[in-house]
């Protein structure tokens, strides 16, 4: 488990955060630029030093101000993937990949070059120089280089931010395979909620150097106070679903979750696979009685958990079985439907508003 509790003041900016991430899985650090995400990564890696607090990973203490422990950067063995791939320009792709591998203790070399090359599909690039690679290729090589250093922890500092949507879609499946196949905890810095919902297990929301929220992705994204209508981020809940069946005739997929089922356009995942989807608050309509003859395929009975009014908008927190959804409607509608905690409603979601891809 990753345990971070640090204080660092630097001029005007002060960072004072504490959070814990799971030993296996993805912890996402989310926030606007300047919220301290990248500073936290640099603190975990050991590039900058906190004034107080500690950074621990499992049994290993990276930093402890009171005990006077400060493990140097090159001894922490964290795989650090940067926004700009930072490949070494004078080395071939192969030499870049092996840079950390050669420096890892022989006994710890459990991830091999062949394995990484196959995982990331970079066989054809091995003899090339970094300047001859595309942005997406560079990022895959950077990922492979970090993996081959046999890291105890992967730090990914907005690795997709410099890529366009197409390149993002190219990298994301590799990251998902990495998450599912390698037992390495990952800290993922992002300012995309779609990315977070798709990849992360734990979500830490940062605001001006402080932790605004920390918890499971589903719980944090269902909170109404974090992403109000005037926030730059699109509010919406994330739910984990299992692929129940595909209906090929209409190119649809039926997804089940703890509380009901959803019909969405065909997803690539096979029957039985689990995935997390994000349902934007403004794509969820509410009805006081069960609507009939509707084009929308998803009508789910729900109980209002919370109502939060903000001028023209009303954000409604809903419980659907064990799952939580968020709906954004007008204050006027909320009043007209007399919505209050405990009200029984029907949540209406257009199938086309949901796509399992999450990215973009």
């Amino acid at each position, binding site marked *: 488990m990753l345990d971070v509790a640090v204080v660092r003041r630097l001029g005007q900016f002060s960072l004072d955060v504490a959070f814990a991430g799971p030993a296996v899985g993805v912890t996402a650090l989310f926030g606007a630029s300047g919220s301290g995400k990248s500073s936290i990564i640099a603190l975990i*890696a050991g*590039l900058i030093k906190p004034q107080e607090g500690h950074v621990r990973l499992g049994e290993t203490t990276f930093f402890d101000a009171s005990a006077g422990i400060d493990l*140097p*950067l*090159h001894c*922490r*063995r*964290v*795989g*650090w993937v*940067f926004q*700009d791939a*930072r490949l*070494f*320009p*004078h080395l071939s792709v192969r030499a870049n990949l092996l*840079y*950390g591998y050669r*420096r*890892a203790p022989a006994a710890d070399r459990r991830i091999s070059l062949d394995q990484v090359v196959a995982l990331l599909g970079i066989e054809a690039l091995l003899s090339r*120089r*970094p*300047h001859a690679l595309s942005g997406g290729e560079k990022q895959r090589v950077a990922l492979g*280089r*970090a993996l081959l*250093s046999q890291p105890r922890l992967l730090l990914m500092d907005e690795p997709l931010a410099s890529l366009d949507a197409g390149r993002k879609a190219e990298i994301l499946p590799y990251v998902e395979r990495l998450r599912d196949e390698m037992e390495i905890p990952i800290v993922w810095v992002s300012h995309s909620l779609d990315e977070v919902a798709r990849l992360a297990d734990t979500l830490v929301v940062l605001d001006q150097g402080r932790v605004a929220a920390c918890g499971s992705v589903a719980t944090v994204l269902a909170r109404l106070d974090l992403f109000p209508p005037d926030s730059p981020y699109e509010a919406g809940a994330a739910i984990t679903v299992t692929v129940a069946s595909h209906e090929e005739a209409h190119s649809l997929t039926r997804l089940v979750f703890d509380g009901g089922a959803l019909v969405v356009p065909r997803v690539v995942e096979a029957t039985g696979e689990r995935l997390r989807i994000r349902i934007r608050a403004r794509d969820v309509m509410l009805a006081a009685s069960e609507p009939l003859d509707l084009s929308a395929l998803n009508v789910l009975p729900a109980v209002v958990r919370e109502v939060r009014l903000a001028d023209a908008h009303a954000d409604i927190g809903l419980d659907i079985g064990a799952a939580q959804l968020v709906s954004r409607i007008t204050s006027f509608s909320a009043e007209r439907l007399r919505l209050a905690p405990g009200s029984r409603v029907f949540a209406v979601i257009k199938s086309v508003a949901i796509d399992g891809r999450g990215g973009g």
Partner: protein
Amino acid sequence: MPLTPVEIEALLLSLRIAFVAVVGALPLALLSALLLARGRFPGKLLVDGLVHLPLVLPPVVMGYLLLVTLGTRAPVGAWLLDTFGVRLIFHWTGAAFAAGVVTFPFQVRAMRLALEGVNPTLPAAARSLGASRFDAFVTITLPLILPGIIAGAITAFAASLGEFGAIITFVSNIPGETQTLPLAIYSAIQTPGNEAAAARLAGLSIALALAGLVLSEIAGRRAQRLIGGG
């Protein structure tokens, strides 16, 4: 255009002095360049000024300063002679020392420029991959600044070949010991009837300078290709 043995001696001596001057000053130049490019310390401006002093001082003054510090009766010179038996004055090593000091700024400037061109995040990336500071410097920074080191060394080499004032002031003009090409040309001009020798030596200097320029260009391109910039 056959050269006389004395002229060949002057040529070889010049090459040897320039080579020793450049190679001898290189490690210190690299250290100074690192300090100036990456370091943040009080008195940095002073160090910067000191490094560049030989560039702005008249070479004769440089030679004079060397003479009054490293002459056998000057404090540092006497100590060197007593402790190590080293005598720089009137000796070819003294000429190399003078050339090394005068051309020091050329090396530092080229290295510093190259260092400032290296993305400082690359060594940090190397360290996150398990490389110590020294390891990261040797395997990442050093190869990336190689073109700068080569360019600086060649410029300093060419300037050392042409150094006159500091050498003649510090170690005098002794054929076979401290008489480099420019000093030999000077002597030839001073001697009536030796115009042909002066012309030959001048031609030789020009050829050397051109060869240096071409070499520097080729080395620069090679190194650039090596680091994948082109």
